[in-house]
């Protein structure tokens, strides 16, 4: 009897204290933009704003037979909607030397469909923010407390714009999806507790680590940044800003960008666009942020974007994160030689970067090959060759989407690609 009362008393008496850094951070080194991207910039172009110019694979030096093998792999099984196994490719678009050389759709999708991109949205959000930085609306080293009143308390106000872009905010966050939804912060942000004002929800989480010190994949960081942008722009200007700044200028006519009820663009998750339009984003980065002779992004923005988040090197890696190689809202292929971590895409050149989204969506950009590959899928079961994937993975690589297999087949279609720029990048290199 005594034990029962004591137990109840202890349980009810516990208060959940917040965990957060109350100590003032030392002045962080300002991030200075500048310098060329880590690849040869493409300048002489027939710009695809109104539509991609086309060419045959042979005309751009691609092997048609190898491309056919790649397409066969991607479209071999349009996985039925009952068991959802197999590769479920909706769209594939390949751009080489600035020309559309391959394109195919399935499962009812077409060249005009604005497709859900999930986290590919994050990479396009990087670029919208880059346009805002170029206009002088905000700077990488700004703290969000300078712009976003809800974030002043609890240390979150000290998070800098660059910390959000590099997913190194330190904000307390749980990024899990349908396999572990109950305590997921991202599910709470998108659908329940946070959905009315997602940026405020993220800011309310408080800090679990000092800003800039810990890398942790977070949809919250991206969407909070879009909330900061909304506050800077004001509601009226914010509503059309992605179109004025980016979509209209590079011809992403199919783009749809959903917002929360407060008006913040859900930069982590809700961009919809056609595969052809998504490739245009890749082209903008290959051109160092210049489009038809006009600079949309600051000089050095692409270089910054393709630099590994410094906090990643200080963050303990798990099987699920060892392949993540984060730039600023993009994935890189550098590896970490100091920790014996090989590049995540060994088949591809080391300067390859990508936007990637849940259930098999990706924009892969290969600067040394002047090639962009967009593959939009709806895969629910992955191949067992992905580290960290152990729930009902598919052991037969021909029966599930394997990123490595996709890249191998893609490289086989680009003769001379194998071995191109495969030396791992040392820390601090870009």
């Amino acid at each position, binding site marked *: 009897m005594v034990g029962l009362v004591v137990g109840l008393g202890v349980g009810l008496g516990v208060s959940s204290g917040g965990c957060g850094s109350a100590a003032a951070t030392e002045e962080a080194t300002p991030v200075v933009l500048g310098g060329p991207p880590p690849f040869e910039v493409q300048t002489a172009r027939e710009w695809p704003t109104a539509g991609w110019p086309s060419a045959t694979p042979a005309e751009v030096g691609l092997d048609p037979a190898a491309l056919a093998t790649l397409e066969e792999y991607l479209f071999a099984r349009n996985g039925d909607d009952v068991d959802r196994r197999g590769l479920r490719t909706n769209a594939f678009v390949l751009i080489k030397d600035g020309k559309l050389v391959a394109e195919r759709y399935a499962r009812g999708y077409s060249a005009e469909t604005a497709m859900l991109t999930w986290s590919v949205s994050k990479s396009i959000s990087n670029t919208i923010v880059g346009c805002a930085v170029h206009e002088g609306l905000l700077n990488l080293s700004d703290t969000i407390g300078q712009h976003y009143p809800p974030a002043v308390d609890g240390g979150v106000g000290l998070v800098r714009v660059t910390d959000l872009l590099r997913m190194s905010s330190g904000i307390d966050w749980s990024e899990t999806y349908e396999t572990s939804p109950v305590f997921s912060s991202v599910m709470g942000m998108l659908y329940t507790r946070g959905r009315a004002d997602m940026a405020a929800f993220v800011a309310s989480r408080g800090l679990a680590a000092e800003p800039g010190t810990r890398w942790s994949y977070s949809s919250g960081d991206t969407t909070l940044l879009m909330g900061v942008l909304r506050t800077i722009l004001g509601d009226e200007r914010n509503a059309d800003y992605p179109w004025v700044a980016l979509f209209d200028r590079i011809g992403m006519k199919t783009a*749809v960008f959903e917002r929360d009820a407060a008006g913040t663009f859900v930069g982590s998750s809700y961009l*919809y666009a056609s595969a052809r339009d998504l490739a245009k984003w890749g082209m903008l980065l290959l051109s160092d942020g210049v489009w038809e002779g006009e600079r949309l992004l600051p000089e050095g923005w692409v270089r910054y974007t393709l630099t590994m988040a410094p906090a990643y090197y200080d963050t303990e890696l798990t099987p699920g994160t060892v392949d993540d190689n984060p730039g600023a809202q993009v994935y890189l292929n550098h590896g970490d030689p100091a920790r014996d971590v090989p590049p995540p895409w060994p088949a591809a050149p080391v300067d390859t970067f990508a936007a990637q989204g849940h259930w098999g969506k990706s924009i892969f950009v290969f600067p040394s090959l002047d090639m962009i590959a967009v593959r939009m899928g709806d895969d629910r079961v992955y191949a067992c060759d992905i580290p960290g994937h152990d729930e009902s993975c598919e052991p037969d690589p021909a029966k599930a989407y394997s990123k490595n297999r996709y890249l191998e087949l893609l490289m086989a279609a680009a003769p001379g690609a194998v071995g191109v720029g495969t030396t791992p990048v040392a820390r601090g290199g870009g």
Partner: protein
Amino acid sequence: MRKVFKIAGLVVGLALAAAATFLLLNWGALSSFPALPSSYEAKELCSCLFVEGRTQGECEAFIRQEVVGIDGRDFDVDGKRVTVRALWSENSARYVSRRHGCVLD
């Protein structure tokens, strides 16, 4: 005999303390969970139908999950709104514009 009851009481007491602590620390997540299936479905069905332009059957197949039973889905095609009921919750999303797609109420 009294000692056995005492120990049993202590064990039960500790278990209750653990449960109460767990609930307190995670109340936000736990109390909002029932709204999750219907919210997720309402928002993603709306976008699938009105942004991607897919059929109702394709969209229902897209959002289908086997964990939580769905009590009902209402498709208001003219009003461009989807309402879903599950786990004692009802949630609705509507298509607001060509540029901005769907948003949960």
